[in-house]
């Protein structure tokens, strides 16, 4: 008790806790078998789920798949052995790190990298640890804890969105995009002259920023190119634009593709001009 004799809030909480404990002792039910029964049922569910997933994984996977396709419902049993010299692999963490992974894609300016990698995750961890010292109110009813409920909903929603976006993030991996080319040709009725350009388009990293016929991801405002041909910009324009995009279109962040050489630039231009969209 404080020196003035008036009970401090902590003393009141101590007294209430003491009464709570006495009340539980008097009117509570023994842990075994009442609560332990619930725990046992739940544990049985957990073990069943784990065994079920393991069995389903075995049944649906088709051995090692080095191309990332035909994964089976729960993924392959193992991918290719580690190759530190590869140039055709898209690293991804385990799914429960996807929200952190996507944070790295959000902070795409070089000056902000350390924010996404280290600072923000650590701030979140510290906030989590300090929660009992941030929220010291006694109230436990949800209807009277608006800040807590809103924070919980925001956290769950944002982590869910970040995890989902991390899971669906697509990359312009040349060895994967090249396999989409036949479907491009079919869907957009591309003439045979456009096929070499289509292949070049697939392996030159264009789909890192542009979308085309369902492939690729849009980044930095790069337009979808499925129907670029219907704008009838002309072969010459396309070649000049590819050689130096910022010369033709000031302020464009698109890098130069000059080093591909005249012949390949022409093939790309033919492909782009032939892309008039799906029939």
């Amino acid at each position, binding site marked *: 008790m404080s020196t003035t004799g008036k009970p401090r809030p902590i003393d009141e*909480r101590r*007294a*209430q*806790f003491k009464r*709570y*404990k006495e*009340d*539980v002792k*008097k*009117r509570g039910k*023994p*842990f*075994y078998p009442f*609560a*332990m029964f*619930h*725990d046992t*049922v*739940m*544990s049985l*569910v*957990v*073990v069943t*789920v*784990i065994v079920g*997933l*393991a*069995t389903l*994984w*075995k049944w649906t996977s088709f051995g090692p798949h080095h191309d990332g396709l035909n994964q089976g419902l729960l993924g392959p*049993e193992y*991918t*290719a*052995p*580690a*190759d530190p010299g590869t140039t055709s*692999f898209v*690293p*991804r*963490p*385990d*799914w*429960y790190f996807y929200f952190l992974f996507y944070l790295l894609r959000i902070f795409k300016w070089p000056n902000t*990298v*350390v924010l996404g*990698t*280290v600072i923000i995750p650590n701030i979140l*961890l510290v906030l989590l*640890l300090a*929660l*009992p*010292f941030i*929220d*010291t109110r*006694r*109230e*436990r*009813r949800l209807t009277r*804890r608006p800040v807590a409920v809103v924070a*919980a909903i925001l956290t769950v929603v944002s982590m869910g969105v970040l995890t989902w976006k991390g899971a669906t993030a697509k990359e312009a991996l040349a060895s994967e995009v090249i396999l989409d080319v036949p479907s491009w040709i079919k869907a957009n009725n591309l003439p045979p002259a456009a096929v070499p350009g289509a292949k070049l388009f697939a392996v030159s990293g264009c789909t890192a920023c542009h979308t085309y016929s369902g492939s690729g991801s849009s980044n930095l405002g790069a337009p979808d190119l499925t129907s670029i041909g219907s704008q009838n910009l002309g072969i010459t324009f396309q070649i000049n634009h590819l050689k130096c995009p910022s010369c033709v279109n000031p302020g464009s962040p698109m890098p130069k593709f000059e080093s591909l050489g005249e012949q390949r630039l022409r093939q790309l231009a033919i492909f782009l001009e032939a892309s008039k969209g799906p029939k």
Partner: protein
Amino acid sequence: MAARRPPSKSQARREQMSAAVNFPLDWLEERSGLVGGIKYFLFRKVPGDTNWMQTLGSATLTAFIVQAVTGVILAMYYKPTPEAAYSSIQNITDHVTMGWLVRGMHKWGASVFIILMFLHMGRVFLFGAYKYPRELNWIVGVLLLAMGMLEGFTGYLLPWDQTAYWASVVGINLNGTAPFLGPWLAQFLRGGQEIGAETLTRFYSLHMLVIPGAIAGLIVLHLYLIIRLGVTSPPWSAEAAGEEWEDEAPTELRAGLTRAGSGGAAS
């Protein structure tokens, strides 16, 4: 003393059996006190209205035990060198009897463990069960969450396939971007300048010994605190609010909080 009826045959047999069971238990109890401890744990009182959501904690513990047991068995067949790791996993999956099941349980058990930890954390948060006097237990729980995720990260490297290798490259370099100590931390984790055999054995040691030891110790502390501090009622609990007591003036009641003593002095 009134004369007792002579015990029936079945009653006598039951008494004999209970004496036979109790004898070793009493022997153990007198020499260690363990039986009494377990009995205290089993028969301690918990609020009568505990919810199904409050089983998530013990479900997480079950998932961890599954991981520990399957992990120990996997460790008997896994070889932690870059040359042999991949083929030992292939061996476990394809050739060892029930190896596919143990490996599958371990891999999916990891995801289940992490999901259950997050659900349990959410339940504790929504119940307000991190408030006085359970702040320390919450901190222990957050540390358990961090340890669990680290366990998943270190275990991810062990199969030494493409996914494992590159996820670990990025993860370690992530640590390397921390200011000042980052490059040193990354080099320590890698066991050198490049990821190689030292990284694999280092991660294996962390995954098998250091982090599970830390998790086990924290779990013991976590359980001790739960037993000592008691289990909470759900915050909407009518019983906790003492609504059925008619002899308490309504203003004395604080619904959802620790209840006032029955018939005791006003708070």
